[in-house]
């Protein structure tokens, strides 16, 4: 898609949320510059409020369906960027926002339903995490600059709209595919997974639906790579 030597005009926009993804991204700024990403739009960093045309735009936070302004903003951002990256679990699969459905809070009690970006626009890449860590961010940027036809995890996972530890249970553990490697337990940001006698055990009340355990499972990765080759 893009060549390694050309500089890419990039932006970051926080659609709503906790700002954790914004500051995780900021922590990786030097690393992104090494990848030739030139930040041209980032309201938390630069005093530019007009949206420029961009090669890549990272968007964090989920979209509130009852907020017309957010939906319109998202559609406008889509038009301005060649590639949209859903950055973080809220933007990718709803994350913690999946639980904030009760609404009823002043001064906007009607706002209650938050959705991943892909419910409203075409998303080109997703990166999960609460927030995504530096390793994932580097891998993602490499994937964005790669022009070959290799399996691209970040592209593949844009198809998921909701994930939780139950996806891992249903698709890996119950079918007997789990090898007890423990990657899911290491990945879980709330430590909701522990390995007991070589099998993951879930403390389901601590699952925030970030999707990390599911997408980092090597057995899933093997399955997805295979399906791509077939």
């Amino acid at each position, binding site marked *: 898609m893009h060549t390694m030597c050309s500089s890419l005009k990039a932006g970051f926009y*926080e659609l*709503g*949320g*906790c*700002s*954790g*993804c*914004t*500051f*995780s991204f*900021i*922590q990786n*700024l*030097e690393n992104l510059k090494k990848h030739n990403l030139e930040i041209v739009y980032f*309201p*938390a*960093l*630069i*005093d*530019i*409020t007009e949206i420029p045309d961009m090669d890549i735009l990272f968007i964090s936070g989920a979209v*509130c369906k*009852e*907020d017309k*302004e*957010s939906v319109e903003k998202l559609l406008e951002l889509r038009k301005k960027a060649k590639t949209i990256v859903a950055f973080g679990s809220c933007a990718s699969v709803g994350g*913690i*926002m999946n*639980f*904030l*459905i*009760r*609404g*009823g*809070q*002043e*001064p*906007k009690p009607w*706002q*209650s339903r*938050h959705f991943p970006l892909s419910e409203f626009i075409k998303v080109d890449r997703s990166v999960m995490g*609460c*927030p995504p860590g530096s390793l994932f961010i580097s891998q993602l940027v490499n994937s964005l600059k790669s022009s070959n036809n290799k399996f691209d995890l970040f592209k593949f996972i844009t198809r998921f709209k909701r994930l939780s530890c139950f996806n891992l249970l249903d698709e890996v553990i119950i079918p007997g595919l789990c090898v007890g490697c423990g990657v899911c337990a290491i990945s879980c*940001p*709330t*430590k909701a997974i522990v390995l007991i006698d070589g099998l993951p055990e879930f*403390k389901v*009340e*601590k699952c*925030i639906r970030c999707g990390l355990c599911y997408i980092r499972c090597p057995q899933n990765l093997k399955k997805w790579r295979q399906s791509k080759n077939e």
Partner: protein
Amino acid sequence: MEQKILTRIAGEARIIIKGKNNIIEDAVIYSSTPIRAFNTFAKGKNPEFVVEAIKRVCGICHAVHGCVSAITFEKCFNINPPDSAKILRKILVLINRCYSHTVAQFLLLKDIFKSEYFEEYYKIIRELMKLFACCTEIVGGTSFHPHNIIIGGFLSPLSEKKKDKLSSLLKIAEEETKKFIEALEDERLHTDIYKELSKIERKIEYFSVGKLEPKYLPERKDIRIEPVTGVEGELKHNISNLVAYYRNKVVETGPRARLFRTGDFTGSKIVDINRARVIEIIEAINEIKELLSEIKEEDRVLEEIKFKHGEAETFYEAPRGVLYHKVKTSLDGRVVEYEIIFPTMFNFPAIREVLKGVEKKFADIIVRLYDPCIPCVVH
């Protein structure tokens, strides 16, 4: 009337300025970010989940939100965590304060330093942000939304190796912060706008409950929460935040209010709120050093937990000021009611007062100086 989007803040906020001849008569700061409903979501949920969720109210002051939520549940269930767990939490919250105050400097850098000095101090602040994030990871398990904070205490103790690592990182952080403090005091490095602002004095009543853990307990009934006033029509429906007053007064809460309470600092210039922040970083580092000597790797850090019916509230000092959590639980220990009052809710009316009578060109900087952390206010 002018309306503009504020940049170099965490989250999203706008300002409406009313005034004549470049002087602000009134200014309304608000956010239109959709509400996440953290005050209503918890109903019927398991307390352990609620603590994890509440860490995600804010991506900057996550540790303090998690700790205050855990403390409030513990009071509700009569759980007394081991002393070492309390110390570990305190260390984590102090690191969180250092990180949050450093983020504030990061957002203010362009306002403070002339362009020829910007890069030098940008490097120092970026280094400090990395150092404090690393310290958070060492103690809390992760650099964002630390998973070691749980009801009953702390998930894992701090090994001697980690203690040594933490001490060495804090030593570097202290040296870097001192360099930055020198630069903050050296007006030759400052932008003209910052120099002008440094001369303006404003005095708002201060509100604090102590330095960290509450020493002076206010009462919930003394806090009034209401919609933002002075905005009419369509715009009124666009505002997502509420504001708070203490004893019916506009109050400033945060670093200066805390230091004023203890008599450590009396600066009442507009920029002094930021000087108070860097003083607090040094204070926090020194306090962490002392606390580290009080814990051992083999200490017990977790108490048995049993959920039950109850009710509790906690006042605490978050980086931005006074934070309040209240919980009620049912017979099976599930949440019936949860309420959070955030410091920025007090600080929004305070900023509005400070802006009255100053030149319009100062509006953006003053918001950043006082409280650049918007996500919490729209929780």
